[in-house]
């Protein structure tokens, strides 16, 4: 695979590798994604907008330049407390894993981030992973983030990303720390086409977290806990799909994580509400809700890749890797896609009852 270096959400030559439930592989233009859908399917996407989560500034005690990357929070409404990664001098042109370290951080250290002022509440079991508290009113914090923050950048995209590069067409509440990039495939014309074919489209709002910390010790903890909200309309669609045996198709790993988290908590049901996803999906996970996933073409070893192991076995994944590599699929946020149906032997478990949601 090769890195997608241009921040174009829907390049005309984008492709999708398709794997059906029997493990058969084919290739299509990604613009034909809607043709993969069937009546009674429910398509669920993450409508989170992306926060400008990269904040440059100064560590007050030492006067040294730092970059903060907001990485998590306990709820979608929280605006004062964030978990955050801290980097030293430099910028995104240096790969994250090669970035210089920040000064030694201590509880109570003050950080000056443009108009924003913050304090290190404590270290989160790592010298550059902190709980950050912003000062000021919610209005001041929102303005500070909106005006001073920049989207988290990627070393493989040489042109700096603007905020609008990171918002999917359906972006709503600004709660994600990196874009829910599987949703780049969507546009309003596709949604109208889906609607005209009586295929239901719903959303969740999931605070997609950072994809890389630059530190192997922290990377193994990815994805961090992520708050999400399932609205009533989406819960009803899923309930109807479960009753009618329609497929539930997740646009992106965050949707799969959220729906399966709720199903694990509620024994196969998906009631509406806000929750905190804490689990990791992988080869040993039993999928209860999601029948198929549209995701990026991820590299082996990433947390996104691990999640795909819940859908297909390792032999199939190896064949997928081979196809992606030999056909020069593009990886990362602005790259090509894969569409995986859950392996046929993994039948969807029935919900406890049909009375919920």
């Amino acid at each position, binding site marked *: 695979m090769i890195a997608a270096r241009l921040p174009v959400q829907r390049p005309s030559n984008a492709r999708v590798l398709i794997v059906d439930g029997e493990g058969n592989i084919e290739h299509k233009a990604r613009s034909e994604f809607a043709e993969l859908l069937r009546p009674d399917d429910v398509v669920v996407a993450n*409508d989170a*907008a992306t*926060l*400008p989560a990269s904040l440059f500034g100064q560590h007050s005690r030492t006067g040294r330049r730092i970059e903060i990357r907001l990485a998590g929070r306990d709820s*979608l*409404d929280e*605006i004062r407390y964030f978990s955050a990664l801290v980097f030293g001098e430099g910028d995104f042109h240096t790969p994250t894993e090669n970035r210089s370290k920040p000064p030694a951080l201590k509880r109570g250290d003050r950080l000056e981030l443009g108009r924003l002022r913050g304090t290190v509440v404590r270290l989160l079991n790592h010298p550059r992973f902190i709980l950050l508290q912003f000062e000021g009113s*919610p*209005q001041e914090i*929102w*303005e500070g*983030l*909106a*005006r001073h923050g920049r989207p988290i950048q990627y070393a493989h995209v040489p042109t700096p990303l603007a*905020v*609008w590069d990171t*918002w*999917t*067409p*359906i*972006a*709503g*509440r*600004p709660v994600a720390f990196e874009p829910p990039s599987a949703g780049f495939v969507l546009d*309003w014309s596709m*949604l*109208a086409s889906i*609607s*005209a074919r009586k295929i239901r489209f*719903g*959303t969740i*709002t999931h605070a997609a977290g950072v994809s890389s910390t630059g530190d192997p010790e922290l990377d193994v903890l990815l994805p961090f806990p992520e708050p999400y909200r399932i*609205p*009533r*309309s*989406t819960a009803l669609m899923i309930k109807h799909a479960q009753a009618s045996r329609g497929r539930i198709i997740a646009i992106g790993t965050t949707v799969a994580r959220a729906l399966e988290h709720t199903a694990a908590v509620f024994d196969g049901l998906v009631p509406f509400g806000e929750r905190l996803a804490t689990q990791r999906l992988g080869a040993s996970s039993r999928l209860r809700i999601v029948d198929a996933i549209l995701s990026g073409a991820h590299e082996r070893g990433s947390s996104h890749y691990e999640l795909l192991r819940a859908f297909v076995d390792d032999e199939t994944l190896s064949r997928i890797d081979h196809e992606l590599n030999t056909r020069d699929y593009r990886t990362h946020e602005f790259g090509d896609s894969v569409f995986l149906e859950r392996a046929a032997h993994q039948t969807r478990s029935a919900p406890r009852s049909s009375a919920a949601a």
Partner: protein
Amino acid sequence: MKIHHKSVDSILSPLSPLVAPTDDQPRNPFTDTRVAITGGTSGLGLSLVRELLDRGAKVALVARSRDRVECVVQELPAAHGVVGDVSRKEDIHPITMQIVGALGGLDVLINNASDLGPIPLQLLGDTECEDLERTLATNFLGPFRLTKAMLGSLAASARECRGAVVVNVSSDAAVIAYPRWGSYGSSKAALLHLSRIWDEELSSEGVRVLSIDPGDMDTPLHAAAVPDADRSSLKRPEVAARELADTVAAVLSQRTEAIVQEEIG
């Protein structure tokens, strides 16, 4: 008060069929409705902020002047003030982020901020291109960009049967060719047609786009355009705000009635 296309009575939500009112005590359709108003520190915009707060809405207002935004928020602490210029492309996402972030979503967007064009009003032949560009940026491109940036939130609102209404504040100058109103009138005509097309295109998403002419009002904009106007003949902006709120309420009520029916059903 003129709605330039589709009477409110004809507005149906494609997701939630309209049903006849059955509730003896109708709900206030603005309760907890999340509303954003541009140009919210004077004239019709400020009156709308007051009116909708009174009706129980969660309101964010946008204006260019920090001093005036802070002044309004001091008077109306329940309002969320955002400093920004809708005519600037770079301001659109920061404005959107602050509004949707603070309100937790968006149900109603009122594109009210307007630029009159050159003052005093000029014949088109005497209008500087830059003045026309500025007017179009505020009155046409700004509402387009802001609506586009908020479309995900509005569509989510529609899916949750919360309403999803965009109001583009228009003028009779959008349909009548008044001499010397070329910049303003042509920008409002463009906005009117944009509203019509967008209303058609978004009907499948359940998002309504209305173009509403509130009539000649006693506002700073009107005073700049017609300095010697008889102010007693002009509509008070608070009256226009009440009428506009009633129109939006009628659309939102259809959503409320549908929810009631769903809950009963």
